[in-house]
């Protein structure tokens, strides 16, 4: 018996010792690979592996990693919503669709040339920033409001606003509540972990309107609570309320009070300017395309356009004056034809809006082009 025990312990000892040596070896080879392949894409192959995260980070600082990571992975990891009709919703077959999801596709079309190379991860509101911070997702497009504290404390980098929204209130049509002044001592349903909750507390607090905030983690519970009249009022971004109202069996009305500015747009993590610019210009290309009047339908007819602005935008060759045909390179790290890919595969801003939000009877409002008196204005593509 005693001898057997000793043999066991001895074997264990040897295995442990071997394991330690093996760890040391693999660690040192990691280090070697790192120093040899300073900026190569090969290093990025390992980035998909979480164990290699820090190596990834080290490369990031020298050569701008996220763009290379996405290109090497061949798929864009996009944080989205799966419960909000019109913006991000999942169907019975597991396919995501919606306004925000289309912008994930826009970025994939620009970076990878394939609008379908997107993997949408559904996130609840409270998860989205930790997930972005961890580097699990490349971009967060989940009806997320741009605020100073999020830019600052959340290490988030907000980009071109894709939808200008505002916080509104919805009540049952027969409730007798006509404005938030009538809503004192009501119970108000709101999602936890949102700026909506902060605005609600701040604005109604300032106006001295007492209320009970009933906070839910997901609309899956909030919606039945509103339908069962557990709360008289539902507050959220006005566009979301319109989206939900379209799917409810009860008659509702949206109060005239809009208590906040809610600019919604894509978000990336701080610390990678190159990637932020890529995402930003991909999104802005949809707005520029609408301004040019280029749609997914008629993009073919622009192939021989005489307008040098349009030619440059679509990555078509321009005569340099000496009879040479040159293709303008803007140096973003994107293919020269990224805008053509976006428009032909996903469409321009107006098309995306029409496809996803018009069915909810949302009008363009402040989201019209600047040429139509809206706020959609982007810098020139040159």
């Amino acid at each position, binding site marked *: 018996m005693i001898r057997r025990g000793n043999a066991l*312990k*001895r074997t*264990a*000892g040897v295995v*442990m*010792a071997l*394991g*330690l040596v093996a*760890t*040391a070896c693999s*660690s040192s080879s990691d*280090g070697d690979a*790192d120093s040899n392949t300073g900026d190569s894409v090969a290093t990025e192959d390992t980035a998909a592996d979480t*164990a290699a*995260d*820090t190596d990834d*980070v*080290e490369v*990031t*600082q020298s050569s701008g990693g996220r763009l290379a990571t996405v290109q090497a992975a061949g798929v864009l990891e996009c944080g989205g919503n799966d419960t909000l009709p019109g913006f991000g919703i999942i169907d019975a077959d597991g396919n995501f669709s919606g306004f925000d999801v289309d912008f994930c596709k826009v970025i994939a079309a620009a970076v990878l040339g394939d609008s379908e190379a997107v993997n949408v991860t559904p996130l609840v509101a*409270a*998860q*989205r*920033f*930790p997930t972005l*911070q*961890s*580097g699990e997702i490349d971009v967060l497009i989940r009806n997320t409001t741009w*605020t100073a504290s999020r830019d*600052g*404390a*959340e*290490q988030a980098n907000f980009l071109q606003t894709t939808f200008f929204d505002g916080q509104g209130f919805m009540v049952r049509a027969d409730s007798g509540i006509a404005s938030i002044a009538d809503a*004192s*001592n009501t*119970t108000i349903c709101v999602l*936890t*972990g*949102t*700026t909506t*909750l*902060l605005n609600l*507390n*701040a604005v109604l607090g300032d106006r001295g309107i007492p209320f*009970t*905030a*009933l*906070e*839910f*983690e997901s609309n899956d*519970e909030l919606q*039945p609570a509103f339908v*069962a*009249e*557990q*709360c*008289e009022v539902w507050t959220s971004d006005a566009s979301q309320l319109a989206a939900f109202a379209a799917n409810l069996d009860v008659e509702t009305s949206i109060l005239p009070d809009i208590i906040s500015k809610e600019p919604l747009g894509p978000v990336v*993590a*701080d*610390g990678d300017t190159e990637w932020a610019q890529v995402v930003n210009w991909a999104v802005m290309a949809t707005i520029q395309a609408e301004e040019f009047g280029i749609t997914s339908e008629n993009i073919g007819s622009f192939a021989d356009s005489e307008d040098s602005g349009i030619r440059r935008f679509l990555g078509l060759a321009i005569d340099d004056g000496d009879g040479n045909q040159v293709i303008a390179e803007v140096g973003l790290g994107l293919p020269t034809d990224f805008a053509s890919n976006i428009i032909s595969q996903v469409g321009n801003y107006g098309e995306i809006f029409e496809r996803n939000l018009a069915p909810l009877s949302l009008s363009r409002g402040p989201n019209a082009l600047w040429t139509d008196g809206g706020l959609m204005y982007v810098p020139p593509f040159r």
Partner: protein
Amino acid sequence: MLERLLRLAIILGIFAVLYIAFWKVRSSSRNDADEPPPWRDSRVLVVAAQVAALGLIWSAADYLWANFRARTADIGLELDFGFLDQPSGISIADNPLNSNAAIREALIQGVKNTFLVIIIGIPLALILGTLIGIARLSTNWLLSKIATAYVEFFRNIPVLLVIVLTWTIFLNAFPPVRISWLPFGETFIFNNLRFGFPSIVGGTNFGTFQIIVALALIASAAVWVWRSRLFDRSGTPHHRVLYGLGTFVAISVAGFIALGGPFDITTPEIIDRVYVGGVTMIMPYAAVMLGLVLYTASHIAEIVRGSILSVAKGQVEAGNALALNSFQRYRFVILPQAFRVAFPPLINQFLNYTKNSSLAFAVGFAEITGVIQNLFGQSRPAPQLLLILMIVYLVFSLVLSAIGNLINKRLQIVGR
């Protein structure tokens, strides 16, 4: 990378030094002759294995920590706790917390809500579980089958589902606020947001009355002890519950009359959406607690049943031989012995209950997990908040186990 290699080298160095040291100790203590070399000496290898295992764990932890630090440094995430003094901006339903109060205040309210779920729910789960466990062993066919069905149903569905189920039932079974159900002549309020119950409100002399009640409690405890001692000495039936309760009620009622009615009973009512009088309980709290109690009771029932079956059959027969009726048999023979067996696994269930209470936020009851989830979304640093959350549950669990172990120890001493 270099730094981490250096640390590994240090670990290997410690490993080597210890290895050599043990070899030296071994060789100096004995004359070598037929001693095996150190790489085959189990005394050396046992220590070497432990040092190597420690080294492996340390380097794995070190690697993950370095990853974490690199990532947080990359995105500029601060890892201090200064944010706890910032205004939280959040609110908690039916809690007077000001939304401009510091985050630490919000966290304290969250812990308080968790505590409220635990302190009421665990005794309820214990009582319900014990009753069902006994019912499963009943000779009444219907009763035991109902108890079996109950256990099989609740034990085999996820606890989150039970909570959402009780919440959904409450949500749809009770009417909305504007047409609240007011049973017993409007002394209660039931709607799908809040439940209102009558309560007492202190009038003049209420402070004196509270002192009298406290004295009544002490007096009844003294009577209890006196009756117990009498019983031990002479065998006279003690009736200590009757005597104790009688003393308490007699003194309290006498005090109440003497002070001319020091308190009134108020009933809750809703005036213009505001609840006045009585005490109210928010529905999600009741739903969460009911869900957790139903679920935990199904597990407790099985523990109780198992431990009752573990009591030797001769004990039951001895009870029968003494002509004890079935209540007396349970009360004086079976349960005291079964409880001793049941207690350690019961503590486990109480810990599970505590941890499962974190699912409450799904239905809108803001206990500590809900509050912290909320703060995640309000630009507050997740690593620190998660650490706080883990510490809170750790403290709850450790305190519960400590109390449980204390009781367990006393049970063992009283017993054998």
